[in-house]
C-alpha cells in the first residue's frame, strides 16, 4: 500500500530535475530490480542524500563509484536474503527455517529418499536410463582417456617424438626412412638428446628346448635412452654395436627372461642362439618396458657398410628424445633445415620428401583419433538424450506435486529452498544412476577389451584399460553434471507457479502447467532430433561397412592360409639356399593330402608387409604427377594360381624363370593404367630400386587389395623367386610367407604346414597360421567396432526417445481426458479424437526430425574420414533413418492415442 501511495511520486521524482544531484539511472534500475517495493523509496532517498553529499566532498567520479557500490550491495543483500530465507515470518517458527546448509541437505536427502521409495517404478526407470547414459560414457571415456590423453608409460613422454619422412605430394607423413638419411640426421641435429632408428624383426630361438619364433625390435643404440629407460640388470647397447660384426648382443624383456630363462639372475653374460648365431645376453629390460609392437627382445640394428649408404630404400623407423626445454616445433624446424640440405645434396633420392617430427603419441594413435572422438561425441549425445528423458519424467512428476509445492510456497517456503530440495532429489537419482552406470561400465569395458581389434592392441594405454581414479572421477563429475542438467529446468519450472493458481488447478485436477508443458515438448523434440543424428551417423558407417565388405580383394580368400617362415641368416647365407628351402617346402606341401596349391611370397596381401621402390622404364621417362614408384613382390612359380589372381595378358611365371634365365617381371593392372595407359607393356624393360637390374615384362595380372579393402591399389611388380633381387637387401628372400589353398580348415592345415617345414629343416619354427579370411576381417575390424558401437548407441537413443514420446503423449492424454470426454459427448468420433492426438504428437516428431536432419548433416561431416563410398549427405541413408524414426515414433504415439480414442465420455465427465 505504501508503495502504491508513494510509488507514483517517486517515479515522477526520478525524472524531475531536482535541484540536488539525481541518482544515476542505472542505480535507480538496480534498486527497482533488487529491492522489495516498500523499501525502494526510503533506501533510494538515503542513497540520494549520500550521493549529493559525496559529490560535494569527493567529486563526481568518486561519488558515482561509491553510490553504485552501495546500491549493488544493498540490492544483493535483499535478493540473497529473500531467496535464502523466503519472506520473513513472525518470530514464531522462524528458527524452524534457520539451520545450516548441512541440516538442510540432510533433510532434503532424507525427503528425497522417501519420495523415491514411494515411487519405485519412477525411480527404477530414471536410474536405468541414467545408468545407460553414464555407463556408456564411462566405458568410452576410459578408452579415449587411455589412448588419447593419459601420459605415455615413459619418463617425460612428451619429449619423445617419432621421426620420419613426409611426402607431401603423396599425402604421407611420418613414412619410413632410408639408412643414409637417418645417419645424416643423427650426425647433424643438435635438438635431440637421443635418436634411434629401428625396425620390427623376429628371431628364432633355438638350442633351449622347443624352437620358438620371437617378436623383436632391432634398434640402433640410443633407443632406450630416447624412451628414458635403462636396464635394471646389465647394460644398454654400446655405440659400436650398431656396426655389423659387433652386433651379436641381445636385451631380453622381463617377460621373456621369466618365461624362457626362468628368471635366472645370472643370465647377463650368457650366450643364447638366435637364428643359428650365438648372441650374448647383455641385460634384461625393466618390467614396465612397453612398446606398441610388444617385442620380446631387443637387438642392435646393425647394417653392413653397403646398407648404411642406402638412400633410396626406405625401411627404418626412428624416434628421438628432445633435449629438455626444447619444443616439438623447435625440433621440427631443425629437422626441416637438415631435410632441405639433404634434398639439395641428393636430388635424385631426396627431392620429393621432407622430414616429419611428430609427438610420439600422435604417431602411435594415428588414424584412431577421429574414430574415438566420434564415438565419444556419439555417447555424449546418448547421455544428453538420457538427461532429456529423465527431465521429462521429472516434469511430469513435478506436476503431480504441484499441490505440495504450492502449499510450501504459500506458507513462506523460499523458492531457492524448494529448488535446492528438488535438485537434491535429482542429484540423488544421478548418483544412483552413476553407481549403476559404473557397474555397466565395468562390464562394458571387459566386453570392449575382448572385442578390441588387433590394431588397437598397439595403442598406448590399452593394457591398463579399466576403472581407475580418473575414470571414476569422470563418472562422478558426469553424474553430478547430469543431475544438474536434468534437474534444474524441472525444478525451476515447478517452483515458478503462482501459489494461488497452482492451488486452484491442483484442486480442480486439470491443466498442464504452461511452461512445464512447453518444456516437456521441447525436450522430446530434442530427443527425436538427437536420435536422428545418431541414427544417421550409424547408418552412414553401416553403409560404408557394407560397401567395404562388398569390395572384392581381387583374389579368392576362402580356403587360403598363410604363415611366415623366416630363415636364420647363419644357415641360409645366400639366395640360392633360401630359395631351395622354400621350393622344397612348397613341393612337400603340394603332395600333402588336402592341399590344392602352395606358393611363397615376400608380401602376402593383408599381412602389413610392404615396400616401395623407384621404378624406371628403359629408354623412356615417365611423365606422371605422382612419384614413379612401385611395390616389389617376390613370388614363387604358382603364386597367382594359388591366390586366384587372374592373368590379364602375357604369361605367369613358370620353370623358364630360373636364377640364370633372363630377368622377368609381371605387373598389375594399376601399373599399366598409371605408366602404360596407351601402350602394351609386354616386352618393355623396367628396373626397381637400386642397384638397377633390368627385367622384361612378360605378363599383366589383375589388381589385388594389399593394405586393406578400402585402400587404393598401387602399382605392383612381381618378380620370380629364383632370380636374385638385391634392392631391398639380401634379407628379403629369407623372410617369405608360405600360402596354401586347401580343401580343409585351419586345424587340418597347421600340422601339414609344420610337417612340411620340419621335413626340410627341423630347426625351423613356423609362425602363426592365419586364414586369409581372418586377415581381411581383421583389416576391417576397427570399422566393424565403430559401426557396432555407434549402432548400439543409436538403438539406445531411439529406445529412450520412443519412451520419451510415449511418456509425454500418455501424460497429455491423461491430462486431457475430460476435454476429450466433452468433445466426444458433443459428437466427436473416435477417429477424430485419434487424429487430434496424432496431429499433436506428429507435430512434435516432425519438428524433431526436421531439426535432427540439419544436425545430422553437420555430424556426418565430422564422419567423412570414416566413410567409404558413401557421401556424408547420402539421401538413401537419411531417408531410411527418417522412415525408421517415423515408424518408431508412430508406434510410441499410437498407444496413448488409441487410448484417447477409447475414452468413454460418461466415465471421463463423471470422474472430473
Amino acid at each position: 500500500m505504501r508503495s502504491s501511495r508513494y510509488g507514483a511520486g517517486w517515479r515522477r521524482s526520478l525524472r524531475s530535475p531536482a535541484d540536488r544531484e539525481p541518482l544515476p539511472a542505472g542505480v535507480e534500475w538496480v534498486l527497482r530490480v533488487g529491492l522489495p517495493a516498500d523499501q525502494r523509496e526510503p533506501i533510494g532517498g538515503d542513497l540520494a542524500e549520500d550521493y549529493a553529499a559525496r559529490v560535494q566532498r569527493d567529486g563526481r567520479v568518486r561519488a558515482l563509484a561509491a553510490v553504485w557500490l552501495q546500491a549493488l550491495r544493498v540490492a544483493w543483500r535483499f535478493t540473497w536474503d529473500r531467496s535464502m530465507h523466503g519472506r520473513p515470518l513472525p518470530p514464531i517458527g522462524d528458527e524452524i527455517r534457520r539451520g545450516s546448509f548441512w541440516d538442510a541437505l540432510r533433510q532434503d536427502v532424507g525427503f528425497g529418499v522417501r519420495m523415491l521409495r514411494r515411487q519405485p517404478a519412477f525411480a527404477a526407470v530414471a536410474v536405468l536410463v541414467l545408468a545407460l547414459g553414464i555407463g556408456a560414457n564411462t566405458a568410452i571415456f576410459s578408452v579415449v582417456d587411455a589412448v588419447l590423453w593419459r601420459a605415455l608409460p615413459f619418463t617425460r613422454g612428451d619429449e619423445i617424438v617419432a621421426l620420419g619422412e613426409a611426402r607431401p605430394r603423396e599425402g604421407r607423413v611420418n613414412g619410413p626412412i632410408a639408412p643414409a638419411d637417418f645417419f645424416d640426421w643423427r650426425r647433424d641435429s643438435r635438438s635431440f638428446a637421443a635418436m634411434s632408428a629401428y625396425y620390427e624383426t623376429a628371431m628364432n630361438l633355438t638350442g633351449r628346448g622347443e624352437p620358438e619364433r620371437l617378436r623383436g625390435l632391432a634398434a640402433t643404440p640410443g633407443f632406450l635412452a630416447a624412451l628414458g629407460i635403462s636396464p635394471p640388470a646389465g647394460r644398454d647397447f654400446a655405440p659400436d654395436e650398431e656396426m655389423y660384426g659387433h652386433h651379436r648382443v641381445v636385451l631380453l624383456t622381463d617377460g621373456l627372461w621369466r618365461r624362457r630363462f626362468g628368471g635366472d639372475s645370472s643370465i647377463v653374460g650368457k650366450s643364447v642362439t638366435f637364428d643359428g648365431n650365438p648372441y650374448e645376453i647383455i641385460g634384461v629390460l625393466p618390467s614396465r618396458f612397453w612398446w606398441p609392437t610388444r617385442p620380446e627382445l631387443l637387438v642392435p640394428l646393425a647394417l653392413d657398410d653397403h646398407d648404411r649408404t642406402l638412400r633410396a630404400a626406405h625401411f627404418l623407423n626412428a624416434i628421438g628424445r628432445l633435449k629438455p626445454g626444447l619444443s616439438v616445433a623447435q625440433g621440427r624446424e631443425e629437422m626441416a633445415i637438415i631435410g632441405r640440405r639433404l634434398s639439395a645434396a641428393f636430388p635424385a633420392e631426396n627431392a620429393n620428401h621432407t622430414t616429419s617430427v611428430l609427438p610420439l603419441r600422435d604417431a602411435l594413435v594415428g588414424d584412431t583419433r577421429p574414430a574415438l572422438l566420434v564415438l565419444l561425441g556419439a555417447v555424449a549425445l546418448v547421455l544428453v538424450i538420457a538427461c532429456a528423458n529423465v527431465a521429462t519424467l521429472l516434469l511430469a512428476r513435478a506436476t503431480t506435486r504441484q499441490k505440495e509445492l504450492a502449499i510450501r510456497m504459500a506458507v513462506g517456503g523460499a523458492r531457492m529452498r524448494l529448488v535446492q530440495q528438488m535438485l537434491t532429489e535429482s542429484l540423488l537419482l544421478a548418483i544412483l544412476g552413476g553407481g549403476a552406470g559404473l557397474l555397466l561400465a565395468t562390464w562394458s569395458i571387459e566386453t570392449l577389451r575382448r572385442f578390441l581389434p588387433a590394431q588397437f592392441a598397439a595403442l598406448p594405454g590399452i593394457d591398463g584399460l579399466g576403472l581407475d581414479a580418473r575414470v571414476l572421477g569422470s563418472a562422478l563429475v558426469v553424474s553430478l553434471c547430469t543431475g544438474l542438467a536434468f534437474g534444474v529446468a524441472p525444478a525451476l519450472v515447478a517452483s515458478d507457479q503462482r501459489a494461488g493458481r497452482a492451488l486452484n488447478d491442483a484442486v480442480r485436477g486439470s491443466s498442464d502447467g504452461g511452461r512445464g508443458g512447453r518444456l516437456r515438448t521441447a525436450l522430446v523434440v530434442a530427443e527425436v532430433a538427437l536420435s536422428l543424428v545418431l541414427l544417421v551417423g550409424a547408418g552412414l558407417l553401416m553403409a560404408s561397412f557394407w560397401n567395404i565388405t562388398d569390395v572384392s580383394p581381387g583374389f579368392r580368400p576362402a580356403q587360403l592360409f598363410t604363415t611366415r617362415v623366416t630363415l636364420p641368416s647363419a644357415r641360409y647365407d645366400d639366395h640360392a639356399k633360401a630359395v631351395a628351402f622354400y621350393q622344397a617346402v612348397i613341393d612337400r606341401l603340394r603332395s600333402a593330402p588336402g592341399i590344392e596349391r602352395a606358393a611363397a611370397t615376400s608380401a602376402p596381401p593383408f599381412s602389413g608387409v610392404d615396400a616401395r621402390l623407384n621404378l624406371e622404364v628403359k629408354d623412356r621417362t615417365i611423365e606422371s604427377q605422382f612419384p614413379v614408384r612401385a611395390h616389389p613382390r617376390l613370388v614363387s612359380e604358382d603364386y597367382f594360381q594359388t591366390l586366384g589372381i587372374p592373368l590379364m595378358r602375357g604369361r605367369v611365371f613358370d620353370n623358364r624363370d630360373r636364377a640364370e634365365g633372363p630377368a622377368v617381371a609381371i605387373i598389375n593392372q594399376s601399373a599399366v593404367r598409371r605408366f602404360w595407359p596407351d601402350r602394351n607393356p609386354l616386352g618393355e624393360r623396367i628396373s626397381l630400386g637400386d642397384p638397377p637390374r633390368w627385367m622384361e615384362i612378360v605378363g599383366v595380372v589383375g589388381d589385388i587389395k594389399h593394405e586393406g579393402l578400402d585402400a587404393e591399389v598401387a602399382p605392383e611388380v612381381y618378380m620370380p623367386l629364383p632370380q636374385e633381387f638385391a634392392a631391398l637387401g639380401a634379407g628379403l628372400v629369407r623372410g617369405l610367407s608360405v600360402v596354401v589353398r586347401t580343401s580343409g580348415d585351419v586345424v587340418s592345415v597347421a600340422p601339414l604346414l609344420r610337417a612340411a617345414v620340419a621335413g626340410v629343416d627341423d630347426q625351423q619354427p613356423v609362425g602363426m597360421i592365419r586364414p586369409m579370411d581372418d586377415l581381411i576381417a581383421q583389416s576391417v575390424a576397427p570399422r566393424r567396432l565403430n559401426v557396432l558401437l555407434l549402432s548400439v548407441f543409436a538403438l539406445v537413443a531411439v529406445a529412450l526417445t520412443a519412451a520419451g514420446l510415449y511418456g509425454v503423449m500418455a501424460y497429455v492424454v491423461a491430462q486431457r481426458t475430460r476435454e476429450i470426454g466433452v468433445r466426444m459427448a458433443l459428437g466427436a468420433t473416435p477417429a477424430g479424437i485419434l487424429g487430434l492426438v496424432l496431429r499433436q504428437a506428429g507435430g512434435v516428431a516432425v519438428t524433431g526430425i526436421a531439426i535432427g536432419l540439419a544436425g545430422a548433416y553437420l555430424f556426418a561431416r565430422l564422419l567423412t574420414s570414416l566413410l567409404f563410398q558413401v557421401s556424408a549427405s547420402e539421401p538413401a541413408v537419411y531417408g531410411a533413418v527418417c522412415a525408421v524414426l517415423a515408424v518408431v515414433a508412430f508406434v510410441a504415439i499410437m498407444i496413448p492415442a488409441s487410448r484417447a480414442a477409447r475414452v468413454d465420455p460418461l466415465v471421463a465427465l463423471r470422474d472430473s
Partner: protein
Amino acid sequence: MTVAAALGEFEQVVLLAILRLGDDAYAVAVQNEIQRCTGRELSRGSIYITLDRLETKGYLRSRLADPTPERGGRAKRYYTLRPVAIEALKESRRALVALWRGLETKLA
C-alpha cells in the same frame, strides 16, 4: 520459549540504537549511532536488512515522513520500537546481567 530468545546480538544493537535516537531513527542515523557508540564499521545493507526483518517480526513500527528535495523527492522511513521490543531488550539485558554477576573481578 520466550520472545527474547529470538533476539540476535546485532538485532539488540540495532534496537538500542533506535531507542537512543528517539524520533530521529532512520537507517543512516542508526548506522551512524552504532558506529559512534561501538566503533563498528557496518554495511548499509546489513542495517536495511535487519530493520526490515525486525519490522516483519513485529519489533518495529515504521512511518514514512514527507518527501524532501534533498532526497530527490523521496520520503525517509523512521522507525520506533514496539512494546514487545522493549520487553525483549529488558529480557536480554536481565539475562546478560545475570551472567555477568560475579565475573567483574575476572573480566575487569
